[in-house]
């Protein structure tokens, strides 16, 4: 009897939990297509901007209504929801790093046919911006804002060192010479100011490799080529900086002291030149954190003069999940994002580079101080992105570890990169591109 009572009580709790706690999803209207967009921005200002973009679409398109769900996205969340049949119709990832893996695993759908079916005009999208949403020759997404990187430098320190602030370094040799002049040592052997730090705020693997003609992957042969001579020389370049400036950990100590965001060392005067993303020019970044900093931006030096002015690009990828029942409606919304107003709204909100040619000359963006360099880099024909292969995440992690082993562990660059290349090649062969 008591057991029965206990069972009933338990069942009652379950039902109560199910009844009270379960939240019913929103009701569907009659012939209106309802789409769900999961987007990666979680900050309240970013979400407000994205919701305004969605709201403008909904007002103009009563037959296709979009509901936005903001907040950071874990790739596993999308994979699981597609497997479970509850995936959103569309996703905006803040990092295109997942695109190749999603495409490889059929989590997202190729858009070429759907875009052709709705008569999408792609001519206003910067061609190289489409590279980082493509996989195996097919377009798996649309770019919606992108990041590029440039050399930031302290113009006052340039002048104080006898360098012309209007003539930033264009080659790696010039960068070395400039850095020597801009570096200041304390009497105790520590660094008062570092001319250039190659590994802060990130290790700049993606930002500098191609400027040394080091490619990670050869699509024609499906081979990992990170152990080429160009890549070995690129790793040696990193080591040269640490050999020269990290005596008794002097350089690492400066890096460890950084506060105040990516450009913290530049703002405090501990660093004269560095590689940073375009968002640091946005009003919430250097203008707020270091309003007195007199700085400028320029392309990152290159080993090949023809590549000077080009840069690494990646960004926010608009994707359509493979489980959507309304791919054409989703594609129409995607193409709406490829128009000036939505792209401008998010570019200004995120201080990011737009993917549209028409916005590269938009006064709202060109008037941002020091932003022009990024607009030019995005428009450079030799701009590059990460290899769009399913194992790129492992390759990037492997490169990070290999670089650390070379810089801090004294490992041989050639042997380290040989080992990495063979390991990732095996994974690539097993997994497929």
């Amino acid at each position, binding site marked *: 009897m*008591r057991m029965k009572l206990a069972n009933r009580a338990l069942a009652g709790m379950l039902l109560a939990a199910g009844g009270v706690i379960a*939240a019913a999803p929103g009701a569907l209207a009659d012939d209106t297509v309802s789409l769900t967009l999961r987007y990666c921005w979680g*900050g*309240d200002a970013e979400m407000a901007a994205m919701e305004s973009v969605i709201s403008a679409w909904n007002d103009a398109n009563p037959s296709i209504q979009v509901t936005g*769900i903001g907040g*950071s996205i874990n790739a596993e969340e999308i994979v*699981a929801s597609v497997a479970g049949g509850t995936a959103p119709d569309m996703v905006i990832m803040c990092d295109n790093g997942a695109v190749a893996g999603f495409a490889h695993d059929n989590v997202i759908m190729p858009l070429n046919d759907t875009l052709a079916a709705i008569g999408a005009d792609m001519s206003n999208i910067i061609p190289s911006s489409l590279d980082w949403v493509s996989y195996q020759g097919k377009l798996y997404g649309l770019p919606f804002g992108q990041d590029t990187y440039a050399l930031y430098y302290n113009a006052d320190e340039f002048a104080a060192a006898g360098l012309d602030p209007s003539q930033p370094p264009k080659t790696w040799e010039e960068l070395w010479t400039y850095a020597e002049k801009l570096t200041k040592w304390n009497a105790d052997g520590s660094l008062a100011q570092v001319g250039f730090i190659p590994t802060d705020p990130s290790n700049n693997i993606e930002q500098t490799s191609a400027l040394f003609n080091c490619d990670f992957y050869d699509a024609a042969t499906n081979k990992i080529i990170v152990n080429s001579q160009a890549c070995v020389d690129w790793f040696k370049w990193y080591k040269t900086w640490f050999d020269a400036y990290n005596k008794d950990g002097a350089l690492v100590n400066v890096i460890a002291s950084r*506060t105040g965001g990516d450009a913290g060392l530049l703002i405090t005067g501990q660093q004269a030149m560095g590689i940073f*993303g375009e*968002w640091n020019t946005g009003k919430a970044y250097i203008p707020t954190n270091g309003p007195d900093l007199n700085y400028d931006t320029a392309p990152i030096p290159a080993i090949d003069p023809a590549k000077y002015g080009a840069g690494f690009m990646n960004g926010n990828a608009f994707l359509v999940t493979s489980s959507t029942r309304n791919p054409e409606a989703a594609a129409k919304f995607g193409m709406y994002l490829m128009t000036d107003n939505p792209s401008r709204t998010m570019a200004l909100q995120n201080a990011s580079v737009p993917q549209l040619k028409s916005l590269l000359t938009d006064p709202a963006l060109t008037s941002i101080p020091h932003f022009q360099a990024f607009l030019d880099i995005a428009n450079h024909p030799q701009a590059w992105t990460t290899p769009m292969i399913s194992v790129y995440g492992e390759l990037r992690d492997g490169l990070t570890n290999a670089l650390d082993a070379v810089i801090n562990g004294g490992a041989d660059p050639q042997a380290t990169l040989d080992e990495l290349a063979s390991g990732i090649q095996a994974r690539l062969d097993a997994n497929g591109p």
Partner: protein
Amino acid sequence: MSTVALNEGRMAVRTSTKTRRAKQTSTLVFIALVVLSTVYMAPLLWMFSTSVKTAAQAIASPPILVPDPIVWGNYPDALIRMNFPRALMNTLIYAVPAVIFTLLSSSVVAYGFAIIKWPGRNVVFILVLTTLMLPGQVTLIPLYVTYAKLGWINTYLPLLLPSLFGAAAGSWSGPFFIFLLRQFFLGIPKDLIDAARIDGASELRILFRIVMPLSMPALITVGLLTFIDKWNDFYNPLIYLQDPKLQPLSRAVQVFQSSHKLDWPQSMAAAVVVSLPLVILYFFAQRKFIEGITLTGQKG
């Protein structure tokens, strides 16, 4: 007499030396504890300090410990931005029942492993323990698909109902709690159990009337750890709760993080407020924990 006096004198000297040494030891222990406490408290102090700074002070170099002015306004601003009341309610809706469910289910399973003898008991127990080694990523998709088929996505059920089954699904803690309670139950005198059986008590009655009251310290520990686990859980709400209206505290604090920038003062203010209930709960449970040991008397 003189010999006695001499011995008493020696004893007095020895006692005095012992007392002095004991005092010295106590002082050293006290200093060591103060140093260690300071080390452990430093992040919390820094969190609080940053929560009352301006944005510029939060990233100043060299760092500022005591801000001037002190910006108390970060607290109300942060709570409004993260919609604190709703996020708190959303968290409690599943965290509190999860504690009750975990205590019930883990106790029943642990009782079966510790008190009731049945063939293959130890093998099954080891099987349960092996689930501790399963990474969450391995079970994510099968669980998600199951919950999706049941129509539980965008509900609190995936965060709550596994607790009714030893919480083995989707949580590291379930098998651990079963293990912890089983070990505790094994220490309960067998004579008590046998006496109850002779008096005609059912196994459930023995569990709820004898074993559980004698296991308060372990139960409080399990309850506390479950609550902390649910309160801090970011991953499962991220996966199963897409509706912004359902999001708990662990996800609400995201509003301070934009693509490349974190609002340090307000995010730290939110962190202080979100941490506070756990700190209070810990101190409360710590007292109860000691009370439980004293009252239950594990000597048997």
